[in-house]
């Protein structure tokens, strides 16, 4: 019996080490596994947070761009009342788990856009300021700018002068030898400036050469209502008979002509202040001249092309006042030949659908917008920034600043 009692005691004594070892191992592995899981959770949370921040930022950017586009669209759709676009809230961002909201406030001298993107708990706000501006920043086109040899450009310091195209095609901007550009040369978004801008070794660009973030939206010219309602008059050139406008520059006389056709050697003078709509073609035959007299002004709306013969001229006798001669081309105006007979042509030309060809031996001063722009040999161009940008009827916004929080 004593032996039977002792036997189990001896067995218990001999079986002791495996179980504690296994338990220790399990505990150790459990602790490491727990740490690993905790670390993985932390990494996952950090990753999710970073992703949410990036998505929120993308949503804020998307909202900002949409607000910009809508502001420009409102500006293009006349009449423009100056009010900002309506705010939006929690608009879903396509393809992402995010929303954006934006508000546009009118701060008097500028508009401020605030766009907030949200994704999960992340939130990002970007801001931008826009001011009323002008598309007459120098030379702006949709397609091609071709500046021949020896053309000279001048611009006031810090005037923002630029030569700009929306195109990204190779050689869309050609600046021949001896040309100096006192400002920026800008091509369309995504364009490779080395391919788009064709310059020679002696070409000098004092500003920057770069591709824009967005295309310029050149609004179609809309004929003013007062000109639309004006009775049509058949144009008959009578030597020595001027077109006489009103004395009040704020109330120009509206004239609607079927065409303008100045015969060889003829001179058509504009006196007073006129707003002229030419439905058909404007033709200046050999040595003909169309002159805006001193103290007068003319806003000219071209429904057809402007064709120029040899040695003719379109002149503005109001020195340093390009505002006195502004030419707008409707969408039906697809070609404009501009020749200046006087020493200096002062004027602003906005013909966004026309191939604008400038033949000048002397000096052009003002600003030009066309579908394309060709400046012939030896001409010089002086940029005069518009000073009387019409706040009630602006043609573009000037992007002032962007920032984020």
């Amino acid at each position: 019996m004593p032996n039977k009692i002792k036997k189990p005691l001896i067995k218990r004594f001999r079986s002791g080490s495996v179980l504690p070892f296994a338990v220790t191992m399990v505990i150790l592995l459990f602790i490491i596994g727990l740490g690993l899981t905790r670390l993985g959770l932390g990494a996952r949370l950090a990753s999710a947070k970073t992703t949410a921040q990036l998505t929120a930022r993308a949503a804020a950017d998307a909202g900002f761009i949409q607000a910009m586009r809508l502001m420009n669209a409102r500006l293009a759709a006349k009449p423009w009342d100056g009010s900002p676009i309506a705010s939006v809230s929690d608009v879903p961002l396509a393809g992402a788990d995010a929303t954006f909201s934006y508000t546009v406030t009118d701060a008097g001298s500028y508009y401020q856009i605030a766009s907030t993107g949200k994704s999960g708990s992340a939130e990002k706000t970007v801001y931008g300021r826009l001011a009323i501006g002008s598309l007459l920043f120098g030379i702006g086109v949709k397609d091609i700018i071709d500046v021949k040899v020896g053309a000279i450009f001048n611009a006031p310091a810090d005037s923002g002068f630029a030569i700009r195209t929306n195109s990204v095609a190779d050689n869309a901007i050609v600046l021949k030898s001896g040309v100096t550009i006192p400002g920026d040369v800008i091509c369309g978004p995504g364009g490779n400036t080395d391919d788009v801008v064709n310059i020679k070794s002696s070409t000098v660009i004092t500003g920057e050469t770069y591709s824009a973030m967005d295309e310029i939206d050149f609004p179609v010219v809309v004929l003013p209502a007062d000109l639309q309602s004006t009775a049509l008059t058949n144009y008959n050139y009578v030597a020595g008979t001027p077109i006489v406008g009103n004395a009040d520059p704020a109330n120009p006389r509206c004239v609607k002509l079927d065409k303008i056709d100045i015969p060889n050697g003829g001179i058509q003078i504009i006196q007073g202040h006129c707003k002229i709509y030419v439905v058909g073609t404007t033709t200046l035959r050999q040595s003909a001249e169309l002159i805006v007299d001193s103290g007068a002004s003319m806003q000219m709306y071209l429904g057809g092309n402007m064709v120029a013969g040899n040695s003719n001229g379109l002149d503005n006798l109001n020195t340093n006042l390009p505002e006195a001669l502004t030419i707008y081309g409707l969408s039906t105006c697809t070609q404009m030949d501009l020749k200046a007979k006087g020493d200096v042509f002062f004027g602003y030309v906005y013909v966004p659908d026309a191939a604008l060809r400038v033949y000048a031996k002397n000096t052009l001063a003002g600003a030009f917008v066309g579908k394309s722009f060709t400046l012939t040999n030896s001409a010089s161009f002086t940029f005069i920034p518009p000073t009387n940008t019409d706040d009630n009827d602006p043609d573009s916004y000037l992007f002032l600043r962007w920032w984020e929080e």
Partner: protein
Amino acid sequence: MKSGNKTIRRAFSLIELVITVVASLIIFLAASVLIVDSQKGYNKMFDRTLGEVAVDSEVARRTFETIVRKASQSRSLLDIDGQFVEVYYYDSFSSTKPDKYSNFYLNGSELMVDYGDYDWDARTTNVQSTITLARNVTAATFSVNNVSIQMILTVDDNGQQVTVTSSAVRHN
């Protein structure tokens, strides 16, 4: 009875001892390998998520994107070999031209950024501070594509090459 007790409590044979020791050794080694591997995995994951390389990469990305997003679209300075990029931005609303600059470059194995004043017309810089953004960087390449700027960092993460790419669009 006495001799019977001795028979029950006899010692292990040599074979039993050898088998036991070998079995224990195998179990111990297997357990050790398991624990060491687990620890190595933990350390590796820790480095990847919270280690110096990970933190530096994130700091470099954020700093780069923040600076580039507010930079001027019209001008930047890119090294011909893509070894540095310099961007310019406005200090405040009263600035009429970009008057601050940042220059990202590799100095040895450190990604650095210089901050300072910039004269837009004279195109001159005046460095005011230099900050190390990331260490253990074996290569840093910059490129400019229209209005966007890209930075590709290659970081040595305990012998492993990790590539971090950042890209941002200039808005001003």
